[in-house]
C-alpha cells in the first residue's frame, strides 16, 4: 500500500457504521478519512486508540491498526504505544465523559508529557451510550435522565483545562463545519506533540440542539468567532463586529461605529496568555453581552515530545555505557566462588 495514493474510501472497513441516524460522528469520520487521503497517510503505520462511549467505536470504522479499549484509558494506552513506537502515527478518539470524567487524569498527564499523538475529543455534552446522563461538560441546570431537577455540577471548560495542563496544541471545531474541521485535523497531524482538538458534536437522540446557537443560520454569525492567525478578531454579519483588548479586558466593538480593523486584537496562535483569554470566551453566546465562542487553533507551541526525550535518554545510556552486558549485570560487583 505504501507509495500508492489512497482515497478516503480506502480507509473504510467492512464493518457497518452503527451510530444513530443524524449523529455528528458521521461527519467527523468522513473528514478524518478525507484528511487522511489528502495527507497520503499509510494505513499500516496509523493507529487509532479509543476508550468507551459512542465516539470510541471510531477505530472499528478506520482500516488502520486500532484498539477500542476501556473507559477513559485511551490516553494511557496511546502513551505506552507511542513510548515504544515513535514511528507510528497515533490518534486518540474520545468523548467528554471518557476523557474529562473517568479518564480526566490521563488526559491532563498526556498533555503535560506532550507525546506526539492527536486527540479528537468529541464533545456532545451528554452521555450517549448509557442513554442520556449529564456529562462533565453539560451546562448547569440542564435536565437529563440523571438530573431531573437540573445539573448541579459546574461544567469543565475543556480548552482552558488543556492549557492549564500545559498542552502544546489547542483547537476547537464543529461537526457542522466539515471543511474547517478537516483543516484542523491536518494541522493537528502536522503538530509535533499532543494535539487536542475539541469537536462540538450534536447528539440528536439525547442532547439534540446543544450547539444550535452556534450552528443556526440566524444566530451563528453573532455567536461564533473564527480564529485566523495574524488576523483581527472579527465576527457578526459581514464581519462588522470586532473584539479589542481594553487593558486585559476583551471588549466587543462595532466596526461601523468609530472603530477600525487596526484597533482590534490580532490573533497570534503562539501567544499563551492570549490563548488563555480566548478559552475563557465561554459564556452562553446567545445571552446579551457575552463574547462569541471561538473556533480554530487557539494555541500551538513546539516543545520536545516525551518519546523523543525518552529515546534520547536511552541513546545517551548506550553512548555512555555501550550495549548492556547481561553477564556483567547478573554477576554484579562482588562475587565469590565455591569449589
Amino acid at each position, binding site marked *: 500500500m505504501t507509495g500508492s495514493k489512497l482515497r478516503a474510501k480506502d480507509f473504510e472497513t467492512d464493518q457497518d457504521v452503527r451510530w444513530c441516524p443524524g449523529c455528528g460522528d458521521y461527519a467527523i469520520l468522513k473528514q478524518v478519512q478525507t484528511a487522511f487521503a489528502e495527507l497520503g497517510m499509510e494505513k499500516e503505520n496509523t493507529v487509532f486508540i479509543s476508550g468507551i462511549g459512542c465516539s470510541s467505536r471510531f477505530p472499528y470504522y478506520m482500516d488502520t*491498526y486500532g484498539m477500542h479499549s476501556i473507559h477513559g484509558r485511551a490516553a494511557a494506552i496511546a502513551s505506552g504505544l507511542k513510548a515504544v513506537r515513535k514511528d507510528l502515527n497515533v490518534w486518540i478518539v474520545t468523548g467528554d465523559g471518557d476523557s474529562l470524567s473517568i479518564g480526566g487524569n490521563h488526559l491532563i498527564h498526556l498533555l503535560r508529557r506532550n507525546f506526539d499523538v492527536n486527540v479528537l475529543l468529541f464533545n456532545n455534552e451528554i452521555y450517549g451510550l448509557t442513554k442520556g446522563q449529564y456529562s462533565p461538560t453539560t451546562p448547569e441546570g440542564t435536565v437529563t435522565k440523571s438530573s431531573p431537577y437540573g445539573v448541579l455540577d459546574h461544567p469543565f471548560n475543556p480548552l482552558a483545562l488543556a492549557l492549564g495542563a500545559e498542552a502544546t496544541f489547542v483547537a476547537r471545531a464543529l461537526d457542522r463545519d466539515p471543511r474547517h474541521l478537516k483543516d484542523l485535523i491536518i494541522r493537528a497531524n502536522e503538530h509535533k506533540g499532543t494535539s487536542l482538538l475539541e469537536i462540538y458534536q450534536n447528539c440528536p437522540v439525547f442532547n439534540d440542539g446543544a450547539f444550535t446557537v452556534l450552528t443556526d443560520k440566524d444566530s451563528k454569525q453573532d455567536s461564533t468567532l473564527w480564529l485566523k492567525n495574524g488576523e483581527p478578531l472579527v465576527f457578526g454579519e459581514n464581519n462588522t463586529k470586532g473584539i479589542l483588548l481594553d487593558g486585559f479586558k476583551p471588549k466587543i466593538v462595532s466596526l461601523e461605529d468609530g472603530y477600525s480593523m487596526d484597533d482590534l486584537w490580532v490573533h497570534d496562535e503562539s501567544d499563551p496568555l492570549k490563548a488563555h483569554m480566548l478559552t475563557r470566551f465561554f459564556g452562553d453566546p446567545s445571552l446579551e453581552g457575552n463574547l462569541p465562542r471561538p473556533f480554530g487553533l487557539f494555541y500551538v507551541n513546539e516543545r520536545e515530545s516525551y518519546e523523543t526525550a525518552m529515546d534520547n535518554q536511552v541513546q545517551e545510556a548506550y553512548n555512555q555505557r555501550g550495549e548492556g552486558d*547481561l553477564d556483567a549485570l547478573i554477576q554484579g560487583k562482588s562475587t*565469590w566462588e565455591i569449589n
Partner: protein
Amino acid sequence: MEKEILEKKDVTILFAGDSGDGMQLTGNQFTFTSALFGNDVSTFPNFPAEIRAPQGTVAGVSGFQLRFGSVEVFTPGDDSDVLVVMNAAALKANISKLKRGGVVIANTSGFDNKNLKLSHYEVNPLEDGSLDDYELHEVDITSLTREALVDSGLARKDVDRSKNMFVLGFLYWMYSRDLASTIQFIEEKFAKKPELIESNLKVLKTGYHYGDTSETFGTRYQVKKAKLPKGKYRSIMGNQAAAYGIIAAAKQAGLKTFYGSYPITPASDILHELSKHKNFGVKTYQAEDEIAAICAAIGASFGGALGVTASSGPGIALKGEALGLAVMLELPLLVINVQRGGPSTGLPTKTEQSDLMQALYGRNGEAPIPVIAARTPSDCFSSIMEAIRISVEHMTPVMFLSDGYLANGAEPWAYPEAKDLPKITVPKVTQKPAEGEAYLPYLRDEKLVREWAIPGMEGLMHRLGGLEKEDRTGNISYDPENHEKMVRLRAEKVERIADFIPDLKIEQGPEKGKVLVLGWGSTYGSIRMAVDQCIKEGLEVSQAHFRYLNPFPKNTAEIMASFDHVIIPEINDKQLVHVIRSKFLMDAIPFSKIQGLPFTSSELVAKIKEIYA
C-alpha cells in the same frame, strides 16, 4: 589478652534501633560480608511504614534480622542469638525474639530517662534484673562514637549518624569478619564527601578494636564457610532479582522492555533498579496512577514490546479492569504483585500471601490468567523469566507473585551465565494473508495461541478491543454461542499451558507416605527447614512446593494422593486450600498465619507433629 574463639554452625543476629539509626545498612553490610566470606545467609528486614516515626518510640523501631551459617540456611532464623539494641524502644519491641540465654548488646545512651519514658519503661530494664536470663553487654556506643570523632570537626548530627558503624565494627570483631568489603562500600558511598569516608572508617575500626581491648568480652566466634553447591555466587535481593529477570527474559525473547509503574511499597525497588539499565533497551515509565501504568504497558505490548507493570495488592486492585482487557486482547503482559498485608492499605511494609485469590479471580467476567509465584529472593530471577516465557509464547497476561519478605530479603545466589538461560520464542506473524484474503487476528495454533501482528506490518491491519470478539475474525460479536465459545477458548488456552510446564516434584522426603507439606511462594524456606528437622527426627514427612498456581502442574492430584495428610501452610486465611479443594475435590489441612510475618520453622514443626500424631 588473647581471646578465645568458639566455633558455631549458624548464628542469628537482630539489629534494632530507630528508623534513623541505620540498622538496615548495618544488616545489609554484615550480610554481604558474610556472604562474601562464604557463609550461607538469609535476611529479614522489618521496618515501620513511617519514614521517620517519632524517635525513641516503639512504633519507630526498625529491625534487620539475619542468619548466617556454615550449614545451608533457608530462613532468617526464628529467635535470634544476638540482639543489638540502639535504644530502649528497640529492646522493648524485640526482646521476645531473643533466645533464652542470648546476647543483648545495648547502647546505654539510648536508655536515658527520655528514651525510657518514650518506650514506656518505668524502670531501666538494664538495671532492674529483667534481663538476668540473658547475657547483657552494656556499651555506651553513642559516647564512644563521639570520642572517636572528637577531632573530626563534624557536626554532632553527622557524628551521631555514624554510630551504626561502631556496631558493625564490633560485630565484625565478635564474628571474626574481615572489614575489607565494608571499607570499600564506605569509600564508594561517600566518594564525594571524603570527610565522611574518614569518619565512618574511624568509627568502624573503633568498634572493631573495642572488642579487642574491652575487658567485658572474652569470647569471639567463628562461623566457617558453608558447603554450598559449587558455583559462582553473589548476594541478591528479591526485587533486584526480579528486575534482572525481566531484562534477561526480554533479551532472550529479542524484545524491548516497557515497564509502566506507579510508586508503591514494596514494589518500587523494581522500578528503581530497572530505571538504571536503559542500555539494555529498557524503558521505564512512572505513570500518573496504577491504571495508567498497566494501560501504558498494554499499549507498549500492542506496539510489539514486552509490556510489564508492577504493584502491590491495592494497586493490583486498580489494575483489574485493564488486566481483563489484556485477557481479551490476548497480548503478552507481565503483571507483578509484590504482596503486602491487606486488605486496603493494610500493612504496607509487612509480608503476606493474601492476594492469591485476587491473582486467580480478581477480574470481572471469566478472565483466567496464568499465575506464577517465586519461592526465594534469588528464585525471583528464574520465576519471572518463566512468567515472561509463558506470557510471550502463549500470548496472555501473566501474574507474577512475590511478597515483601522475598522483595527485601537477601541470600547468596549461584547465578547463571547468560548463555545458559532459556530461549523465548515470540509468536510474531510471519506472513501476511494471500491477496484478496482477509487477515484473521484471532486464528489460533494447536496451543490455541493467536499470532502477534504489530502496527507497522503491512496488510495486517486489525482492530482489537474489550468487546467480545468473534472467533477468528476478532470483529465485535454479541452472538450468544460465539461468546460461550470464546470464553471456553480463552480458558482452554490457559489450561493447555500445563503441557508446557514441569511436573510438581517432591523437594525432600519420600515420594509417598504419611505427611506432605505443600506450599507456594515465600514459605519455601521455613517449610524446608521444618521438614528437614522432622526428617532428621525420623518422621515420614515430605515437601512439595508450587511455582505454577494456574494452571497447576498436571501431576498435582497424583502427588497429593500419595500421602495420608497434606498440610498447606500459608501467610493468609487458607486461600490455596480453598482452590485445591474446589479444583481437585481433595482435602488439605490448612495452616494459617496472618501477622505480617513469615512462618518460623518451629511453628511449622509443631503443626507437622500435631498432624503426624
